[in-house]
């Protein structure tokens, strides 16, 4: 047995007062969960502490919270670990972000998370006619979508999605992972329509900034951002969907610039994103319009010496040997017969393979 102090974020909507911190000391073994700690405080000290919880075993997805600033399930975090990673030896527990708080650690999942889930037409639209017995589908495809099926809708990824902080209308990691569950399912009849919908939506797949927060946050290995990237590859590469958000062109430009220079060439990126992936893009009207509208930002960057006129004319690049190595990576990946996708149900995590 050891003592742990929990600093809980409390909020009671009925008092009219603001949120405040409250500390409780509990006695448990270090490998017991933060949820067990909170439940002990609730049972022994104050039954009014609000937290959703049910299974205690990281399956039901009820107890998403932020622990020491990071989103996770309270039942999925050991007290000892949480104490070690706290700023001052006190385990800080607060409600998840990006969602309104109802009471204490309970947030309004309906207003944000579930609304976004419903945005992606979250049910199978089956191919017709429906067979008498099961659909015959490749074994791998079902194992593949099992990764997104493993999502327990806890909201941890939504809590810390940086894109959603900037654009609250972003469909977001959980809902897009859910979307992949249908796009990756060979029994669904609307792959193209789903992808087009998500690519054309300004708050859709190209709104993700690739920050990895949701992968870090997910307690179930769903890797929502990976699912978003797979949606992009399917939309852009396989279905050739050129979206009005220039998302697909931006990605293509990004990839080919890195291939060419080994590094990103920022001054080329913008014109190519808007006017096609070619060195001549900057002379096209689509790019000109975009460039001129971006002039204030460019001017500011020049003033602050973030970019230099020389740098624009003579872009930075890796030494030749390194550029060659980068190119080789491209050739290996592009030369494969089949695109390989990361999936914990198939390949395992790194440590699993040893």
């Amino acid at each position, binding site marked *: 047995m050891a003592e742990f102090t929990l600093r809980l974020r409390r909020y*009671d909507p*009925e008092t009219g007062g603001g949120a405040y911190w409250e500390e409780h000391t509990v006695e448990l073994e270090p*490998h*017991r969960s933060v949820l067990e700690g909170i439940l002990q405080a*609730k*049972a*022994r000290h*104050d*039954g*009014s502490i*609000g937290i*959703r*919880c*049910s*299974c*205690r*075993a*990281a*399956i*039901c*997805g*009820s107890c998403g919270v932020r622990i020491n600033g990071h989103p996770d399930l309270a039942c999925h975090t050991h007290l000892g670990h949480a104490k070690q990673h706290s700023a001052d030896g006190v385990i800080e527990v607060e409600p998840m972000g990006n969602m309104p708080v*109802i*009471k*204490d650690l*309970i947030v309004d*999942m*309906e207003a944000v998370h579930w609304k976004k*889930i*419903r945005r992606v037409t*979250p*049910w*199978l639209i*089956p191919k017709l006619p*429906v*067979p*008498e*017995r*099961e*659909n*015959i*589908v*490749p*074994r791998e495809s*079902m*194992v593949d*979508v*099992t990764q997104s*099926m*493993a*999502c*327990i*809708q806890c909201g941890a990824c939504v809590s810390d999605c940086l894109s959603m902080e900037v654009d609250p209308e972003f469909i977001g990691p959980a809902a897009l992972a859910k979307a992949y569950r249908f796009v990756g*399912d060979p029994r669904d009849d609307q792959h193209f329509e789903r992808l087009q919908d998500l690519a054309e939506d300004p708050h859709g797949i190209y709104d993700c900034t690739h920050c990895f927060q949701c992968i870090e946050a997910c307690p*179930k290995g769903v890797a929502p951002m990976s699912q978003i990237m797979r949606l992009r590859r399917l939309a852009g590469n396989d279905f050739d969907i050129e979206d009005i958000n220039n998302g697909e062109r931006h990605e293509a430009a990004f990839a080919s610039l890195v291939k060419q220079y080994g590094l990103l060439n920022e001054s080329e990126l913008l014109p190519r994103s808007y006017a096609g992936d070619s060195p001549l893009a900057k002379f096209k009207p689509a790019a000109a319009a975009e460039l001129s509208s971006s002039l204030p930002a460019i001017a500011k960057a020049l003033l602050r010496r973030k970019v230099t006129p020389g740098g624009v004319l003579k872009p930075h690049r890796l030494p030749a040997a390194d550029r060659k190595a980068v190119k080789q990576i491209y050739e290996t990946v592009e030369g494969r017969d089949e695109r390989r996708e990361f999936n*914990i*149900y*198939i390949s*395992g995590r790194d440590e*699993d393979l040893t």
Partner: protein
Amino acid sequence: MPAHDVLIIGAGLAGQRAALAAANAGVSVAIMSKVHPVRSHSVAAAGGINAAIAIDDDWTEHAYDTVKGSDFLGDQDAIEIMCSEAPGEAMHLEHIGVTFHRNEKGELDLRAFGGASKKRTAYVADITGQAILHVLYEQLMRHHATVDRFEEWFCTSLILDDDGECVGAVARDIRSGTMEIFNAKSVILANGGNGQCYKPTTNALICTGDGIAQAYRIGAPIMDMEMVQYHPTTLAENGFLITEGARGEGAHLLNSEGRRFMEDYAPNKMELASRDVVSRAEQTEINEGRGVGPDGQGIYLDVTVVPRKRVLEALREIVNIGRDFAGTDITREPIMIRPGQHYIMGGVKTDVDGRTPVEGLYAAGEVACVSVHGGNRLGANSLLDTLIFGRRSGEDAARRGAEMAMPHTPASRLREDAAMIDEIVKRPRTGRRVSEIKDELGTTMNEFVAVYRDEDGLNKAHEIVHRLKEEAASAYIDDYGTVFNQDVLGALEVGYMLDCAEMTIVSAIDRKESRGAQYRLDYPDRHDEEWLKHINVTCDGDGEPRITYSPVTITKWEPEVRKY
């Protein structure tokens, strides 16, 4: 006042399946749950769902295995319905999108499970319950125009009209604290079992027997309550479930001598005998000093004999559970387990269409007792039970609704339930804390009403539960608020749990034989002449349990000696 043809209380697999079936029949449907539907405890069902879909399999074999698993206490007409409709239900699930694992030909893959004579368990890794639950919820979202969802609403009681028919329920919106009467032609209880009566248990915190107790309080008979399943593989550390799928994939059980002791108890089926048999074997090994761990209270489950790639693909969740909750990498070393409370075979007595003896009241899933599980449920039959009888209840309630007018619901009930909650909130802080009572109940049940039972222990448990009931009447809480007052709901739940525990104890005392999950050290044999019958508990006028009996339905299979 919301009014619907069919009101469903509970939104796990049984409830959601009932809602979809009733909506499909064209009637108005409401589904209510004290948690968001995907938090329901069905989410924890890991291993799979049984259905005789293999070419060389037949539903009658599935039915026989189920009858034998039940120790011949299951009603065979109901078992025949469940097993013969299983393949169709599995195909339906596949068609609406459940991501069942496939074999190399792309057909549904099947895994071995306990008590089954063939491989007949369809699965999604070891998250089968979760996968089905989430897919049913997808369908509920799809049918949002015809199914009204009341998520995070807590049912406080069922309503009878003057003719003794169930005409609705009173419920509290947890978020706002508002009370409301739900008027309905039929009410389907689908709110699960009462595993929280035990500590430890594999069951979620929400499994507090609400439906069983609420039905009991309005006069419905509660059947087979002495039959409480202990799962053979729960984490020794904290009672979490390790799926039977592990043994289905080939894992071994080892005692302190490193021996597969199941050969002494079930030489043919070994680790895949019925759960009651395996749990008893483990408990015997532990009691006779061959347990493992520092206090000798555990048994080793050795998953390392299953190929690592297969474990990562098909048993991913228990790899996580071993790592996160026991610090054990199950692909490299054995993990310590023990038998732990898992499932309530008993429940509200129903017929094969989910009808209870109370007109207008249905029940399906763990809250109900059809009885298809009898003395012992086979693994992967619970998901099947919820879906088959959930659907049948929904269909039958819809038929009933189409033929009748909306009944009158007495509005006074709202005030009564509001007053009941008010009384709890305003109690002086002189009695015990509600949490203490729950704790004492759990440890009592696990000590005296477990794998092995005897008269003395059961009587002791009975005394304690009697005292706890008195204490609960004055137990106090801390939360005086209305928004998300989980504290006051916890007090109501403890009341439900005490009712359920009492029913289990009086039934276990009454059954003076050993059958299925009920093993009486003082009556170690099965006694068909006297005890091939169901025990029913009803609530008499003073609120005390009264026992009656009902016959077991036998169609094809006469009781025989049960060996695995």
